């Protein structure tokens, strides 16, 4: 394990391996720390932090769909000050870089949270959440207009002590336009967030109290692969952490093949709580089985071989 074939260096991040849990699917790590050593992970993307504590949406907040699920949690979290004092403090015992997901209702909220959370010793990067589809104000509205996203990224970059990765929403007409608009300011991209969707009950009414939710899981992998592929053609050098429906090692290779540098595991943490350590182990085996010097030997093979 920890073979150098899986080491990856990205802005702010020295990753032992390219595998990390995605924001919102791992809370702040405490529950998973009872199951395995969090230091084995490449990094941890913690649950979104907002300026004030938030209670989130009414229930039901989740519904299963074919090979996926909808969620509309609504950014429930105890607020940035509590997260700094408790959740991030707890994570200090592990040798793992933390990527802090930052959300808000207005530009100033993002700026305040980013400023504060980037000062934590174990926070090595910020993931700017401009793509949450489940809150009425903020979130996705910042992530669907290229100029708004650019201004917000710029303001957050000014106050952050650590590199800033922008989490892109797939709910846009042109993902390339969005990536380009933030691409020369952001230190990297994480993509993709969930796709807006709906499920009805047998009386024809929406199941989720929020009416709509974000679709995640294996169902969205083809969408994410295509979007990363497209963005990579136009931005050959920007670091990209890919996510969307990863459930096995071949999925990870697919993401690297379309040009992602590292990957995050989301929904499947619920299906199989041991999926991250399992994938780290099997990726290590897969890379040596394929006789690769480094996982990134496969990077971009989806377009390079055309």
């Amino acid at each position, binding site marked *: 394990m920890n073979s150098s074939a899986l080491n990856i260096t990205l802005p702010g991040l020295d990753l032992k391996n390219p595998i990390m849990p995605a924001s919102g699917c791992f809370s702040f790590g405490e529950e998973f720390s009872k199951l395995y050593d969090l230091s084995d992970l490449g990094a941890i993307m913690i649950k979104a932090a907002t300026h004030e504590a938030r209670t*989130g949406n009414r229930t039901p907040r989740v519904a299963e769909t074919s090979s996926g*699920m909808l969620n509309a*949690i609504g950014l*429930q979290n105890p607020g940035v000050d509590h997260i700094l004092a408790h959740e991030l403090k707890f994570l200090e015992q592990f040798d793992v870089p933390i990527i802090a997901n930052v959300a808000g209702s207005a530009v100033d909220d993002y700026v305040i949270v980013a400023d504060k959370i980037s000062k934590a010793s174990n926070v090595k990067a910020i993931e700017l959440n401009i793509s949450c589809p489940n809150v009425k104000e903020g979130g996705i509205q910042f992530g669907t207009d290229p100029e708004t996203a650019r201004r917000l990224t710029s303001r957050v970059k000014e106050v952050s002590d650590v590199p800033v990765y922008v989490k892109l929403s797939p709910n846009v007409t042109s993902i390339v336009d969005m990536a380009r608009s933030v691409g020369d300011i952001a230190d990297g991209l994480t993509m993709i967030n969930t796709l807006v969707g709906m499920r009805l009950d047998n009386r024809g009414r929406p199941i989720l109290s929020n009416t709509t939710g974000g679709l995640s899981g294996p169902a969205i992998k083809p969408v994410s692969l295509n979007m990363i592929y497209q963005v990579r053609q136009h931005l050959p050098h920007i670091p990209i952490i890919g996510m969307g429906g990863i459930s096995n090692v071949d999925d990870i290779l697919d993401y690297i093949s379309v040009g992602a540098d590292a990957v995050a595991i989301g929904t499947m943490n*619920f*299906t199989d*709580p041991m999926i991250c350590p399992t994938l780290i182990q099997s990726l290590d085996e897969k890379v040596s089985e394929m006789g690769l010097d480094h996982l990134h030997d496969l990077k971009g093979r989806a377009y390079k071989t055309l």
Partner: protein
Amino acid sequence: MKNLMTVVDQKCIADKIHEMVLEGDITSSMKTPGQFVHVRINDTTEHVLRRPISIADIDHEHSRFTVIYRAEGEGTRKLSKLGSGDTVDILSPLGNGYPLEQNDHVLIVGGGIGVPPLYELSKQLNRMGVKTTHILGFNSKKDVFYEEKFKALGETHVATADGSYGTEGFVTDAISALDQHFDCFYACGPKVMLKVLSETMEMDGYISLEERMGCGFGVCYACVCETAEGDWIKLCTEGPVFRKGEIVL
């Protein structure tokens, strides 16, 4: 927490209601009635969410436990097709469960698919010497299950909403026909039933709630409920059992 169990037996015991007996070492960690297991439908990615199902009966001697669930959707219908020798991936045991108090006489009230966890509860209370009276509510005669099993533990009354079996009406109608003193009540069933019981029963009580779940172990924040103090807490880790009045229903 994650374990592979072997199906010993599975049968349909009422309309869409299935009783599955599972065997495996993790049974030894199941102690408190009211806890649940989180069941993966199969090892493909077609069903990404597990199904929370309460534990109905624990048999430590044979390392077996029983779950009872309603096969309502595609996932649980697949689960209902499993037979002896098949394996099931579960997370277990989850949740807090009912506190076992040394009372003289308690009332146990179950509604529909909320009935199962009360069977193990009643078994354990009877073992402690607590007298139990049971009220089981169902929609119709075709939905009734476990009446005989509860009768073996104590006085048992069944109510059906359509009057096709037992007392006509809701559990509250059957309760008002009783003229006895109870020290405490334990309930599991639809939210509206729990709300009415919490508001009308004078004695102390414990209720078990249900909500759509994601992870089942406190990570995803899907199954939250509001406390009387206005906090939103996780049902899977801080519940599913709460003291009467603790949660806004």
